[in-house]
C-alpha cells in the first residue's frame, strides 16, 4: 500500500504547487517577467495569518480572508512600487529577475527578523485521525486542500475564459501592443494579474501553514517548486503549469521510494534541468524564444 500512500502524498503536494504555479504563471503570461518574489507572497500571507490568529487572537474565519487579501495587496504593492519602475525604464528581463530574487530574499529576511528562525504552527485544526482510503491515510484537511485547489483552479480557468477581465488579460498576454491599441490598459491588467495571482498564492500559503508549518524559507522552497511545475508544464500556460505541478508532486513523492527523503528537493531541480535542456517550452507550452 506504499503506492497509494505515495500517490496521495503526491496529490496533496501537487495541489499546493499547482496553486503557486498557477498564480506565478498568470503573472508571467501578462508581464513576461519572472516574479520570484511570488514565493515571498506565499510566506507573507502565511505569516500574516499566524500574526492575526495566533498572536492577536482574531477569529480564524476572519483571519483567513484577511490573510488572502494581504497576500493580494502585497503582490500589488510589489508591482506598483518596484516592478513598474523597472518596466518604465525598459529594464531587461535579467534585471527584473535579479530584482525579484532580491525582493524574495529581502522579505524572507524581514520575516526572519520579525518572527525568528524557529518553526511555527498555526494549530487551528487539531491533528485528526486520518481516513483510510485504499490503504492510504489522508486527513480531512488534506482532502479539503485537494478539493478546494481543484475548485479554485477551475474558477480561475472559467475566469480567464469567460469574463471580460480574463479576456483582456489573455489579450495582453498574447500581444500587448495590439491589446493596447484596442483600448486595454496594460498597466491595469498587470496590476490585476498581480492581485489575482497573489491571492491564489495567499491561499497556497494558508494551506501550507495549516497542513505543515511556517518557516521563513517556506516561500523560497515553494516558488522553486511552483516555478519548476510551470516550466515542466509550459511557462505562461496556466493549464500547463497545473499539470506540471501535479507531475512534480508525484515525481518527488515517488522519487523517495528510491532515494533518501532528503533528496526530495533535489529531484525538482533535476527535472527542471532536464526540461530546460530538452523541452524548454514545457509540455503544453507555446513556442517561445527560450533559446538563443
Amino acid at each position, binding site marked *: 500500500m506504499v503506492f497509494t500512500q505515495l500517490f496521495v502524498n503526491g496529490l496533496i503536494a501537487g495541489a499546493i504547487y499547482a496553486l503557486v504555479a498557477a498564480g506565478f504563471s498568470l503573472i508571467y503570461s501578462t508581464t513576461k517577467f519572472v516574479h520570484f518574489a511570488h514565493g515571498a507572497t506565499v510566506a507573507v500571507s502565511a505569516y500574516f495569518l499566524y500574526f492575526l490568529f495566533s498572536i492577536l487572537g482574531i477569529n480564524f474565519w476572519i483571519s483567513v480572508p484577511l490573510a488572502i487579501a494581504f497576500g493580494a495587496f502585497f503582490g500589488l504593492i510589489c508591482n506598483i512600487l518596484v516592478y513598474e519602475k523597472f518596466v518604465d525604464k525598459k529594464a531587461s*528581463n535579467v534585471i527584473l*529577475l535579479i530584482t525579484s530574487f532580491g525582493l524574495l530574499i529581502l522579505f524572507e529576511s524581514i520575516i526572519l527578523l520579525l518572527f525568528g528562525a524557529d518553526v511555527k504552527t498555526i494549530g487551528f485544526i487539531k491533528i485528526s485521525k486520518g481516513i483510510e482510503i485504499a490503504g492510504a491515510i489522508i486527513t480531512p484537511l488534506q482532502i479539503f486542500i485537494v478539493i478546494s485547489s481543484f475548485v479554485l483552479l477551475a474558477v480561475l480557468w472559467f475566469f480567464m475564459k469567460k469574463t471580460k477581465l480574463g479576456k483582456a488579460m489573455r489579450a495582453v498576454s498574447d500581444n500587448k501592443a495590439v491589446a493596447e491599441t484596442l483600448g486595454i490598459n496594460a498597466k491595469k491588467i498587470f496590476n490585476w494579474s498581480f492581485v489575482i495571482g497573489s491571492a491564489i498564492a495567499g491561499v497556497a500559503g494558508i494551506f501550507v501553514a495549516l497542513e505543515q508549518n511556517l518557516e521563513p524559507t517556506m516561500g523560497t522552497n515553494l516558488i522553486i517548486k511552483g516555478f519548476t511545475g510551470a516550466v515542466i508544464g509550459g511557462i505562461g500556460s496556466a493549464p500547463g503549469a497545473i499539470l506540471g505541478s501535479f507531475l512534480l508532486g508525484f515525481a518527488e513523492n515517488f522519487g523517495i521510494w528510491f532515494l533518501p527523503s532528503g533528496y526530495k528537493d533535489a529531484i525538482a531541480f533535476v527535472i*527542471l534541468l532536464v526540461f530546460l535542456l530538452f523541452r524548454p517550452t514545457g509540455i503544453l507550452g507555446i513556442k517561445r524564444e527560450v533559446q538563443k
Partner: protein
Amino acid sequence: MIESYLIHLAILICIYLILAIALQIAVGFSGLLNLGHIAFYCVGAYASALLALAGFPFWVCLIAAGILAMLSGFVIALPTNKLRGDYLALATMGFSFVVYAIALNWTDLTRGPLGLPGIPRPKIFGFVFSDNLAFLILAIAIALICFFALKRIASSQFGKVLEAIRDDELATRILGKNSFKMKTFALGISAFFAGIAGSLYASYITFIDPSSFTILQIIPVLAIVIIGGLASFRGTIIATIIIVLLPEPMRFIGFPSSIVGPARQIIYALLLLLILLFRPKGLFGKVELE
C-alpha cells in the same frame, strides 16, 4: 582585540574578492548570469576540507578544490549552454540547490548538517598558518595571484572573445569562434577560482557545514559584481570592501547575532535593488545586464 577583528575582516575581503572576481568572468565578461556560483564555492570548500582532514598538504587541497569546482562548472555548463539569460539564471540556481542537497544528505562523506570540524590550518614548508595575521598574509598572496591571473585571462584574446560573445553571440560565431566551447571554458575558469575561495574559507574557519552554502549566500557576491560594475576589476575591489564592511557597524551597536544575520541580508538586498534601479551599470561598469 580590535586588531584581530580587523584582520578577520581583511581575510573575509580577500575571500570575497576571489569569489566576486571569479563571478565577474561569468557574469561580467561572458554575460552568463550564473546564480549557482555558491555551488562551486561549496564544492571547493568540501573538497579542500576532506583532503586536508585526510592529511594532504595545503597546496594539494587548494589545487584540488579548484579543479573539482571546475569540473562541476563543466557539469552545469554543458547542459545549459544554449539557454538564454533568465533561463540560465534559473537553471544554475537549481544546480546550487542540488549541490546544497548533496552536501546536506550525503552524510557518509560530508557528515550532513553536523559539518566538518577540525580542518587543519594551511602548512607550507613546515610553517603552520595558525595565527590569523599569518593567514591574512597567505590570503592576500592567494587573492593577488587570483586577481592578476583573472585580469590576465580577461585581457587576453580569450577574454576579448568572451566579451564579444556577451555583446553579440551570433556575430562572434560568424567570425568562426566556437561560442559553445568558449562559454564552457569561461564557466570552468570562474568555477575554478570560486573553488579556490572555498578552499581558503574552509581552511580559515576550520569548520564547514551546508548552512554556509545556501542560495542566500549568492546575494552579497552578486551585489559586489553589480555594484562594482560588470567587467570592472577596480569596481569589484571597491565593492567588495563596501559590501564586507557595510553591515559591520551593527556589531558595535550591540545587536544580537539573531538580528545581525537577517539585517545583513536586508541591507544587501536593498542595496542590490537600489543600484539596479538607479545605476544599473554599477560604479565602474562598462555594460548593462541584458
